[in-house]
């Protein structure tokens, strides 16, 4: 009786312990990270009367939910075309950059040719040059290409920071895949290209997904280039559209701004939730055990 009692207590302690050592210490960070999202959601669902009442508590809704701000987005602004623009631009530039990134990262990680190290460093350096330094020269380039005020301008420009990023990330990942499996494939008669496409890529799927996910997030959040290169209201991406059409003069449409931000953050959430399992499971299952 006594020993079983001790056993249940030990089991209970094992269950309760992570609560104090893991979850409680994590709680403040989680709250800190989630608070802006919560505030965004609450503000977007609040009626204007409560929103602009100085005496109302800003952290929750006490006078009823309203969908007015979302309705205003749909009726007064071309919000859904901004959404579509963001989606088109992000998906297109992500696909382009991941393909180019894979093609660039493979030789840099695997082949030894004259200047391979300096190519890697050059790519790293281009990644470190910020958009705020590049947007003025790029304006000239975009005008010269005749692409200004089209979505193509963004699809062409975003890879300038996405390709170095993807290349750098994939280079690191490709290096962790053992050389031996590729050597095996080549002994069996694979060419370099086949070995890259059939051996390296399947082994590096988590890395590729990770690169695509980050690239998508980066281009979805992009603000400066989108602000500079596209000015017609219906061609704007979401980040710029919400900012420029919902702040009129010194009037801030806070509810609608927050509603736009809430809808804007959904695709990222969906993308992460959808790919997270894939990503984590891929990470843990190595090619050679």
């Amino acid at each position: 009786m006594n020993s079983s009692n001790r056993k249940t207590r030990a089991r209970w302690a094992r269950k309760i312990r992570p609560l104090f050592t893991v979850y409680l210490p994590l709680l403040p960070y989680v709250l800190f990270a989630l608070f802006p999202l919560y505030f965004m959601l609450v503000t977007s669902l609040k009626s204007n009367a409560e929103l602009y009442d100085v005496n109302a508590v800003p952290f929750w809704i006490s006078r009823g939910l309203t969908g007015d701000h979302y309705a205003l987005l749909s009726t007064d602004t071309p919000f859904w075309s901004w959404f579509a623009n963001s989606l088109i631009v992000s998906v297109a530039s992500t696909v382009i950059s991941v393909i180019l990134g894979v093609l660039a990262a493979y030789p840099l990680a695997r082949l030894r040719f004259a200047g391979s190290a300096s190519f890697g460093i050059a790519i790293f350096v281009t990644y470190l040059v910020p958009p705020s330094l590049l947007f003025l020269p790029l304006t000239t380039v975009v005008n010269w290409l005749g692409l200004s005020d089209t979505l193509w301008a963004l699809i062409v420009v975003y890879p300038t920071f996405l390709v170095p990023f993807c290349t750098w990330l994939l280079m690191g990942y490709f290096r962790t895949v053992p050389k031996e499996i590729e050597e095996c494939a080549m002994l069996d008669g694979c060419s370099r290209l086949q070995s890259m496409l059939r051996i390296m890529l399947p082994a590096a799927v988590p890395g590729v997904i990770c690169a695509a996910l980050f690239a998508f997030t980066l281009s979805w959040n992009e603000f400066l280039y989108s602000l500079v290169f596209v000015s017609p209201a219906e061609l704007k991406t979401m980040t710029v559209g919400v900012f420029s059409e919902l702040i009129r003069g010194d009037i801030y449409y806070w509810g609608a701004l927050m509603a736009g931000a809430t809808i804007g953050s959904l695709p990222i959430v969906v993308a992460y939730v959808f790919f997270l399992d894939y990503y984590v499971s891929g990470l843990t299952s190595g090619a050679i055990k």
Partner: protein
Amino acid sequence: MNMTHLFATYSFALGLQGGQIGQGAAVSLFLFPILLAVVFVQLRLVRKAALYE
């Protein structure tokens, strides 16, 4: 007046909204030497990390 500008916002205001692309470019290029120092340090760190691989 323009006290709270960052380099990026100031060069945007000068170069694109003000139409003086040269001045805007000059402002944004002012970042370059600072950046160079940062890149130098980072490259050294990256190389050091690569040695241990």
